[in-house]
């Protein structure tokens, strides 16, 4: 039976990769036709200046680190695969983001498989970072790679194709 167990464990690993392979959407028909049109630049401009890294990525692992020392600061290490590199990273690079563990309790949490567009502050002297403007620098990304962006207050976020988001960010960078 042991052989079977080992085999099936391999299944699990491969299943993650297969299941998360970006594919063409068959639903969410509003991905290209936000109505009313979303003005992308105003969303990104306020957080663009201070972002050291900007990327769309998939969470691969989350780790808690605490040396146990009475004066040590606990951290959360989140490992991402970069799906779309915009600033400070390369596509397909594995990026490890280290955050102060205190943020976890305030809702700054990740789980493996989650996809996000992040605008991260440059790492501090401690090597720590977090999304620029907390919630303002973190956007969910759906299975199609569409970035869920706020439209009107209270309205459901609209998925916008990542290439359009990248174009808007590039445009905003020029200003």
């Amino acid at each position, binding site marked *: *039976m042991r052989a*079977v*167990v080992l*085999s*099936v*464990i*391999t*299944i*699990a690993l*491969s*299943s993650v990769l297969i*299941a998360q392979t*970006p*594919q*063409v*959407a*068959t*639903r969410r028909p509003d991905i290209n036709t936000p109505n009313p049109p979303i003005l992308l630049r105003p969303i990104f401009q306020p957080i663009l200046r*201070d972002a*050291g890294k900007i990327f769309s990525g998939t969470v691969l692992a*989350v*780790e*808690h680190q*605490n*040396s*146990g*020392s*009475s*004066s*040590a*600061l*606990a951290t*959360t290490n989140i490992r991402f695969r970069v799906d779309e590199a915009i600033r400070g990273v390369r596509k397909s690079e594995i990026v490890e983001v280290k955050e*102060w*563990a*205190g943020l*976890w*309790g*305030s*809702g700054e949490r990740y*789980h493996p*498989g*989650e996809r996000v567009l992040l605008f*991260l*502050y*440059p790492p*501090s*002297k401690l090597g*720590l*970072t*977090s999304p*620029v*403007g*907390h919630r*303002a620098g973190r956007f969910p990304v759906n*299975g199609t790679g569409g970035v869920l962006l706020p439209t*009107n*207050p*209270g309205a459901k*976020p609209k998925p916008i194709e990542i290439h359009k988001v990248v174009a808007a960010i590039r445009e905003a960078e020029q200003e």
Partner: protein
Amino acid sequence: MSKLVFATVVVLLFSARASAGGPAYVAGASFFDPSTIGTPITWPEGIVNYYTDQGDLSTLLPGASADTFVASAFTMWTSVPTAAVSAVHGGQLAENVSGSNISVANGAITTPADITPGATTTPVGIVYDEDGSVTDALLGSGASASIYCADNGAFGGVDNLGSNAQFQHALIILNGNCAQSSSQLPDLQYHLVRIIGRVLGLDWSQANLNVVAGNPPATADQIAGFPVMHEYDPPGCVPVANCYSSNGAVNPAQPKTDDQAALSRLYPVTAQNISSFTGKQVFSQTTARIHGSVYFSDANGAAAQPMQGVSVVARLIDPSTNQPSGSVVVTSISGFLFCGNAGNIITGYTDSTGANFNQFGSNDQSVEGFFDLAGLPIPAGASNAQYQLSVEAVDPLWSTHAGPYGSTSQVEPSGSFTPILVTVTLGGDVAEDILMQGSAVQKSNWYGSTSYASPGQLPTSGNWAGVMSAYGDADFFEFPAQANRSLSVIVNAIDESSNLSESKALPVIGMWALADPGSSPAPANTPSAFNTVNFGETRLDAQIFQSTTFRVGITDYRGDGRPDYRYNARVLYGDNINPARASAGGGTPLTIQGLGLQPNTTVQVAGVTVPVLGASATQLLVNTGAGTDGTYDVLLQDSGSGGQSDMSGVLTIGAGPTDTIKMITGANPATAVGGQAPVPFAVQVLAADGITPVGGASVQLSSSPAVAFSACSGGSSCTVLSDQSGMASTFMTVLSANVMTLTAKLAPASYSNPQQVQATLLGTSSQLDLALITPPIWIAQGATVTLPIQARVMSNGTPVGGTALNFQITAGSGTLSANSVQTAANGNASASLQVNSLSASVRVTLCVAQNNSPCQVLNATMVQDSSLQLQPVSGMLQIAPPGQNLQPVSVRVVDSDTPSHPVLGANVSFLAYIGRMPGNEPIVWAGGSGISQPVMPVILAESQTTVQSDVNGLANFAVSTGGISGNAAIVGSATAGNNSINFEAQQLGP
């Protein structure tokens, strides 16, 4: 730091979950003392001892002023008259905390010891980050900039709690860059009050959401009742007065009715503790309470299962307007004491950091739907009041982390509840349950109850619909699967109206070998729900490495279960194909057996998509295209779900790597140049067992020096396909007086070291040569046939025309069309031999006239009926798409010799039945074993004919549906002597 403290730190930082409508933290079934399960976590005795930084917050707020500023923020909470909570400034921290005393040493980040989670002697540390360097250090470079004050002006929270369900430590950091001017201070105070609210143990709250959502525009009354502990501020709310002050009438930082009620429920002033809180009022005596549970309704409209995650809202009916108040509103989310996410067997019971999910929230299902609206104010001077009781969904956008479902994702309530009026009295407590009308009704699954230990049998179709009705429900099914296959398990979450939904169950999928005792997480699992591009879909793609029986499980990620957690599931699995071999020439019908197959399942054979001609849930019918010899995968793909199943190496096209080639005939007498060798170069392709013939394999024929191969239309090399008996055969015309090496290679294009067989052929040349072009012949006993006999006269390789060639029967009986024939310019001459009711072998001798030399003998050997054998050649199993015709069935009659010889003139009887399924359903093949349908086809017609085999032993039968439209099948047989061969064909209708 003690081990216990270290453990508690880990617990808090990584599994803290919100339970809204009051407590942010509720002791759960792990880590905490069992006696505390279900207890909201609070500060001991309601006393918060805080210690402030030795430094200044800013020039505007030097140390002492900053202390006053902090005390003022605490007072916002401690002044709630019914809340037994106080804040004590215990003194100062041991240092001025700044970026200079937070550093990295030996890879570890160190901070002053009295602000770490273990610093329980300074239970609440407040850092004055004067220059923003602490903020930058913790959140990232640039995070302290004033433009981020709305997010980073005040941050932190509880970071240590004890197993006795009491807070042990919290840390708050105030960013000095947000206290540079007096205009910044109101916002900083607002954010500090909110952080303190969290430190006190308050969850996020939801009331009057339109204040931030904007629809409908908020009234002044609603702004006045908008709780400070709402979860998110819109970006436009800077300064906060823009949104929450109602033109200066409301202090945004002031806890509102809902905040005060929530705090008082956590820290109620009671008759027992009021002596410690001078000037306050006993909570239960000075307010009113409505409590109860939210329930699903059963089929009779009675209370069924508790429903968690519903915001229950009580609004005072304003006596002056008789309308529900916007300002006096109290909320509670049902199940706020319950464990919204306990984990599950498939993805496990711990989070990504290893902390138990169930350490927060009670496991007592009696509180699953419980709500508590204690703290309802009674208007001054009155002894009772009316409250409107209503329910709302917890908004996943604005109240993401509120309530029991806040640690995962909010769940849309099922059914509705018409608001009711409830009269409450001062100090009174009304029990009022809420039954959600029209909610999903709990039903049993059609497959009954399953469990890990007793999985159900997977439905034979691979498709099923289920519901995870009861709390903790999980469905388990078992099914066998073969090694070297992959499969997909696809689950679509649907709501009670059968619409796809991501606001109900969070289905996760796991797989185990059946013998697995119950590993958790499952060896193969989806780490989360909705892991695909398709809305509402969770999919597990798994590779099977060992043939065994597997168990597949489906459950809710949270370990939850409700009557509205419905799903459709499908296992897409290709198990086998039949036949497992196809011709390199294409046109081989294949039946794929599996589970969860659909008409739109696409099939790739050898990397090429082939059309699906027929489908059921367990079978697909395809026709192969032409391909290169080798072993290939068959891939099933589902464009809708993205699921796929790969059957690795299941199909051999043409010759496989272990197939063999065997020479059947090839030895010939010396043959004159220009003449045809009498014995064909015949080979047979066989499987590795040396017995099973392999049809459709590529056989490359070549010769050195060149001969003219009949199979190559006179060419000296070509590639032919073996027939369905594995045979490939050719005659050779000698082109030169040499020893020629004839080679047959098996699929040389596919294999670097192909198998081959060789024969030699001697070409001769003389002054006068006679070569027989007609090879020796075998004729069926009793046959009446006419056989052309052709020969060629050559001289040193040059045709000799105008020479007489004599024909004579020298044994047996028959009639020659001529006894002497003049050769043509090409040296050829022919005569016909007619035999009637052949009863004995016949020999014809041909001699060049004048000298009757040289001579050749043609033997026509009689084959008895009992020796006749039949070999399949082509068309034994075929399918024609709409608009295409079926190919003829071709069989070869041979004798029983080894090697066998083709027999001329044998009567082959073909009998065929034409049938159709009732209702014109598609008929699906199962390889060569017949039609696999549960009901018999209706026989519509019969066709019978007898065909005489030709000189190559071949007899052909035109397969036709006889004009019958629709999906029609032809099943028949060919019989010669005592031998029969079956054939099957299917014509697909439009």
